[in-house]
């Protein structure tokens, strides 16, 4: 009877695990492997991809200086947004974290609820504020400070600023969680040893909050890589990042190139994630990954 029961459990385990495992396998893992396979082919005018295996797409990305410019610009955009989010997000988290629990939750909700609003709507909000007929320009014009509209959109800065505001909440929440996980005794110990607030911050608070900083910066960078709609709306047609090239290749039906560019994007994600983890070493904080 004992073995009957364990048989029963074994069947139940597989009956539960098989459907989700198959679903993710078929619609996440297999398409990704297929994408890689497609990226290893030349283009074809009639089929999805040419018949011969070739590394021409990757060769092109690695050797063509056009792609280098775009990849560097993507990295630069990601870094700028990450740094902006880190400075603003850390300051905000530092103010919110010590608040009483109920107040803290409400303050966090005010930042988290906007994440549920589609990015296209949040970008539209910035167009309404910064566009030619936008809030800023009409206010400046009515006060007579300017004659023609200021061009505040369609630039690298507009993309960096806009994405910073869209992704900031992730950083704040990650850091608030990390700050609240710090044992108060460490900070009191530093203070009783007469460390001033700056030194306490640098030697105690910052290292102990590194898991939050790591997960926040990681999330911000990874989401920047995919943000095609925000980049297009705030940066205009000429502000291209790596993700725009993926989309452009698809519009031109160059599937293998689009596939290879996707893997360039994934590689960039992995490299930067590795760098962030190596730099911040969140694992050194005990009990957290």
């Amino acid at each position, binding site marked *: 009877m004992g073995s009957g029961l364990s048989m029963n459990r074994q069947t139940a385990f597989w009956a539960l695990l098989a459907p989700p495992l198959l679903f993710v396998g078929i619609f996440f893992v297999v398409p990704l492997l297929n994408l890689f396979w497609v990226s290893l082919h030349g283009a074809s005018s009639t089929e999805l991809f040419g018949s011969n295996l070739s590394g021409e797409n990757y060769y092109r990305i690695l050797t063509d200086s056009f792609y280098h410019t775009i990849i560097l610009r993507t990295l630069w955009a990601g870094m700028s947004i990450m740094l902006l989010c880190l400075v603003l997000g850390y300051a905000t988290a530092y103010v919110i974290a010590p608040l009483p629990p109920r107040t803290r*939750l409400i303050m966090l909700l005010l*930042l988290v609820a906007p994440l549920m609003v589609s990015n296209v709507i949040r970008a539209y909000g910035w167009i309404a504020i910064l566009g030619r007929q936008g809030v800023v320009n009409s206010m400046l014009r009515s006060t007579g400070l300017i004659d023609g509209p200021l061009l505040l959109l369609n630039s690298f800065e507009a993309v960096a600023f806009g994405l910073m505001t869209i992704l900031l909440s992730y950083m704040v929440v990650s850091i608030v969680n990390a700050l609240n996980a710090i044992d108060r005794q460490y900070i009191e110990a530093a203070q009783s040893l007469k460390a001033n607030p700056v030194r306490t911050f640098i030697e105690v608070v910052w290292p102990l909050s590194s898991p939050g900083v790591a997960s926040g910066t*990681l*999330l911000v960078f*990874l989401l920047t890589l995919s943000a095609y709609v925000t980049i*297009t709306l705030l940066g205009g047609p000429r502000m291209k990042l790596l993700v725009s090239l993926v989309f452009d290749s698809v519009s031109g039906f160059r599937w293998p190139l689009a596939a290879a560019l996707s893997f360039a994007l994934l590689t960039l*994600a992995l490299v930067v994630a590795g760098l962030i983890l190596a730099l911040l070493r969140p694992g050194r904080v005990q009990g957290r990954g």
Partner: protein
Amino acid sequence: MRGLLIALTGFSYVVVLLPILIVVVTAFSASEFFAFPPKGFSLRWFEAFFASDSMRGAFSRSLQIATIASILATVLGTMASIAIARRKGTLFNLVQGMFLAPLIFPAIVLGLSLLIFYKSIGGVPDFLGLVIAHSVLGLPFVVRSVTSSLLAVDPALEEAGQSLKASPVDVFIFIIAPLIWPGMLAGGIFAFILSLGELNTALFLTGPGVTTLPIEIFSYLQFQGGQLVIAAASAIQIFMIIAIVLIAERLIGLKRIVRSES
């Protein structure tokens, strides 16, 4: 120093909330074009929204996709969580990592890989293709919140049920489900909201005549300029999210809402 920190915090709240506020205010304006402050109050742009076949169609399609995808994600995610929540070992970590991967995986790559996959197997209807993509994206949120609910359940309860010869289905219905439903609901609600606003896979998977509301708004902004009907479309989505947050607050509490997002 304290003053600087508070100033930066204030700036954060302004840049996060202001664009959304402006969109909502604009949606109620009476003028033909964008003006700030808006001239007059009217509901004409909401009427224009519901009078437009393409907008209304995209809206109802978005709701249908979000409903089906979030239910699918909740069912599959709950099954996966129950199977592996308490298991240890490299293999199970790997399986769990696979379920959670879409959380941080660049969604644009997922969208392209699904588009090419659908083409490779001879085509999938756009609606179904979107439901599948949004289920894959919603699944990790369900797995995460259900797993944390499950880990809070005392394993002795489950064992007690089994020793009394309850079938696995009975154990789930009478013991596990009543304890983990807030986790299921939180994950499901989040998958629903995510699908409603999702852009990166929808960019690739929507087709002529089969768009979602965010993609419809995006193409209006790109090609037709600033008609205020987009503000109304956006405001409707924002009101829905506020309503969902308020209901969720009653059902599962603020803490879970804040946590399921981050």
